[in-house]
């Protein structure tokens, strides 16, 4: 079902997440990933995407040129603070100038439909209003974008249509970070790594608006062990509350290594978790950091059933995508498996580009002799491998 209540020749202005797979050029990388998850029958919180078509229409007719002109004032190799200043100016301009943009009504309609769909009380304390996460989903999303995650482009526990409208525009504005601008200007800021796309500065932004999972715990997973490339494992990191502090690298998560074949949790490293990010209980919206109760601090943030469900979802996802994946998840109140939701997924880019490591250096009697003479050290490999750095 495509929920376009308006659109332009470039496409509909909003698309619901369960509308089947859509090109990243229209719904951005994040939106594309979520829609693929949903199309695969995986549990994704309901929501919609404000498409790049909506963005393009909003900045068309002059705003785009005004932005370009301001940026063009930056000399090549401009100092970073000058870039920062220009970026902030551009973002403020964009948020202000797009108020009442052509897709406003379409966004409001989509949000109202989401509210109906989630039923009363879904995600919100008031009982009549859905709370959502609003996340930017750039058309050229790749690994390089990750460093922005959790800073400029994600708003949690957003309540009410007015706040949604504003956050959507703020997400649009997050297209113009200092870094992206510096890059486009041929400046010094390098791409994040070898995996950055050649055009790391996307020229259009989609926005995902998704029902907020009231996360009891959340985190990230990878369908291989990133420390050694072992593809028989799913590695899960998790914290109490919302996953954002983990994604931003602000806290020490629990870490679980699960065997894909048998489902055994082969390693369980439980961290001390003094704080968690939760919805602001007073405002009923937004996020605050609170202290974790003493008895939960060093307790594992996921139980066996939740890990089992997460592993099942991760395996399905990987099989469907045909390559190793990483992603984010949230566990709502209630019990697994229903409580476990995927909130993001993308191809893993480091190990999956390498060939799978060869291990059969010897065969037949040579292999047996190697075992006996210690060339293959059973004990060393069999027991307690070194704890890897995370």
């Amino acid at each position, binding site marked *: 079902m495509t929920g376009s209540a308006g659109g332009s020749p470039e496409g509909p202005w909003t698309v619901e997440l369960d509308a089947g797979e859509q090109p990243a050029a229209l719904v951005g990388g994040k939106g594309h990933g979520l829609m693929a998850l949903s199309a695969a029958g995986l549990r994704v919180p309901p929501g919609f995407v404000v498409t790049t078509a909506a963005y393009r229409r909003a900045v068309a007719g002059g705003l785009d040129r005004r932005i370009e002109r301001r940026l063009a004032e930056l000399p090549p190799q401009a100092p970073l603070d000058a870039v920062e200043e220009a970026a902030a100016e551009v973002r403020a301009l964009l948020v202000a100038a797009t108020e009442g943009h052509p897709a406003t009504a379409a966004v409001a309609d989509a949000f109202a439909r989401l509210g109906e769909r989630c039923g009363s009380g879904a995600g919100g304390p008031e009982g009549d209003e859905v709370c959502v996460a609003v996340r930017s989903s750039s058309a050229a999303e790749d690994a390089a974008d990750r460093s922005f995650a959790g800073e400029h482009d994600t708003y949690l526990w957003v309540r009410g249509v007015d706040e949604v409208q504003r956050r959507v525009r703020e997400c649009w504005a997050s297209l113009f970070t200092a870094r992206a601008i510096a890059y486009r200007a041929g400046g010094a800021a390098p791409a994040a790594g070898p995996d950055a796309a050649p055009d790391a500065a996307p020229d259009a932004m989609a926005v995902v608006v998704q029902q907020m999972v009231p996360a009891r715990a959340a985190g990230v997973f990878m369908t291989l062990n990133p420390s050694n490339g072992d593809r028989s494992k799913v590695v899960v990191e998790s914290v109490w509350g919302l996953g954002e502090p983990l994604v931003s690298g602000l806290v020490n998560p629990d870490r679980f290594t699960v065997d894909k074949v048998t489902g055994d949790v*082969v390693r369980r490293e439980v961290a001390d978790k003094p704080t968690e990010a939760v919805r602001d209980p007073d405002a009923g919206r937004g996020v605050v950091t609170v202290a974790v109760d003493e008895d939960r601090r060093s307790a594992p943030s996921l139980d066996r059933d939740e890990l089992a469900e997460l592993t099942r979802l991760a395996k399905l996802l990987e099989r469907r995508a045909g390559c190793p994946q990483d992603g984010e998840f949230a566990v709502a109140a209630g019990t697994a498996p229903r409580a476990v939701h995927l909130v993001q997924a993308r191809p893993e880019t480091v190990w999956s580009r390498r060939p799978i490591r060869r291990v059969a250096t010897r065969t037949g009697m040579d292999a047996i002799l190697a*075992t006996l003479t210690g060339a293959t050290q059973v004990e060393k490999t069999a027991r307690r491998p070194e704890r890897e750095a995370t």
Partner: protein
Amino acid sequence: MPDRFPSPFEVATPPGAEGWERMYNWYHLFGDDRREADEQRFWFADRLHHPEVLHPYDEIQCECWWQSLGAFNTRIFAMPPAFGVDQRILNGRLYVTPVPAPPEDVAARAEEFGRRASHYYENWDAIYAEWKAKVTAKLDDIKAITFAPLPDLEPEATVFDHVGTSAGYRMIADFDRLVLTMYETYQYHFELLNLGYAAYLTFFGFCKNAFPDIPDQSISRMVGGLSVELYRPDDELKRLAKEAQRLGIDADVLAAGSAQELFATLERTDAGKEWLADWRRTSDPWFLINTDPGHPGGYHYFDTWLENQDLPLASVQEYVRRLQAGETIDRPTEQVLAERERISGEYRDLLAEDDRPAFDEMLGLARTVFVYIEEHVLYIEHWMWATFWGKSKELSRALAAMGAFDEPEDMFFLRRYEVAETIYGTVAGWSVGSPARGAEYWRPIVAERRRIYEALRAVEPPPALGPPPAQVTEPFTVMLWGITTDSVKEWLTSSDGGADGAVTLRGSAGSPGVVEGPVRIVRDVRDLDTVQQGDVLVCPATSPAWSPVFSRIAATVSDVGGIMSHAAIVCREYGLPAVVGTGNAVALLRDGQRVRVDGDTGVVAVISQDG
């Protein structure tokens, strides 16, 4: 933390055990004449095979494997890095140390091993078939031996059949045959065992290399599941339970307080007689099951099912109850095999494509040898030892009846050479028709040895002696005894007296899962009826005789054994967590303490002092 275990020459003799050395053969003892060499070696208590103090007669158990394992490793197959496993007895306990081959010999030995072992691997199934024939022939041999008090007058047949020997001579010869036949089957035991382990370990190492965190259990699940005979004794009891139901005598079976009582009841009806005949047919060989907590057959004094038929009856009653409750009691063999194929297939798919042929080859060989690794226990440890001990007891009754000792059990406080001497003395007396020098001679010696035995039993021995190795790398030590660099460190720490009530034990992760429950310590299969639903079974080790208890317990913690131990295998099958090879759980835990058993990491933690 101390950096070494006590020297064997510093370990004190327990009070009241002075003179214990005379109970064991001189070649088995530490001695000043070889102190210099023995003090430099690392010895660990072999609680896997010999968790208890040895009776002098039972020393033969150790001797059987000491010699045969050594000869096959050192002299026959030329295992490249490993000679045999040396033994010493200290304070009645067996300590062992693997002997490395000289490094300069390893290359030449590797070449020999390659030629010799290949022949066995290439012809494994045929050789194993021959092996079964050889061992069952030996079993028939010792079953045919009988010991009875010598007759006043030999039967006429001795004359008219021209037998040409006396019953006394035959008693001397039969004891030698009994010992030598047992000895011979131990040769066969190691004919295949270590080659089997080498192939299994190779597949194990390959998997650990390819998938660094792969659980040990996953590897054994890819390999195991094929051996039918290992589970046959338990399957026979299940079959008898179903038969009882079919014949409508299940109520009688459940009501019986003992086998004796049940047999008397069943004799009264046709259906009862039919079942009883079935029971008796089944008992040979399927009740030739030892009930020792450690290595089955390790000691003479644990009843076999055949000797104490209340034991198999208790299992049958358990199965009848489960049948009446509508449960399925059959082993899910097909499911196990289907799961084995699924697991193997999924891991295989995760390998680099070029590694898959090597995986197939190693897995194929591991599966071939694994049937032997699992099944030999039934042939040797159960059938042969159960028969050997049964015949030894027959001999002890005959000798006691002839006045050689006050009571049959006294014989087991004699070394086997002393038993041979006693037989000769007794036979000489019988032959010439004058009193033999017997009970009066042994009475004070046996009385002293009984006191010493109790004094030795009262003491918890050190888990190891001498300087520990920096790394435990010898593959058989790791695999068979479950001893690793970490566990040796753990022993050193706990010998430091670090535990002050907050006990945490470490062992091997035998079967996955985490559970909490009250401790139930069971040293002996006869105490299994104390186990309540949901208890955590804490024991020296388990054997097939313990099978019925697994449907009641929440988890198993054992002192000895690696991931291939009975407790680990059965817990995996029942889906129960198990931590095996903890070293001293029986000594450190107490009934009723609440513990958390983490079968994923191999840790047992006491969480409160009462349940």
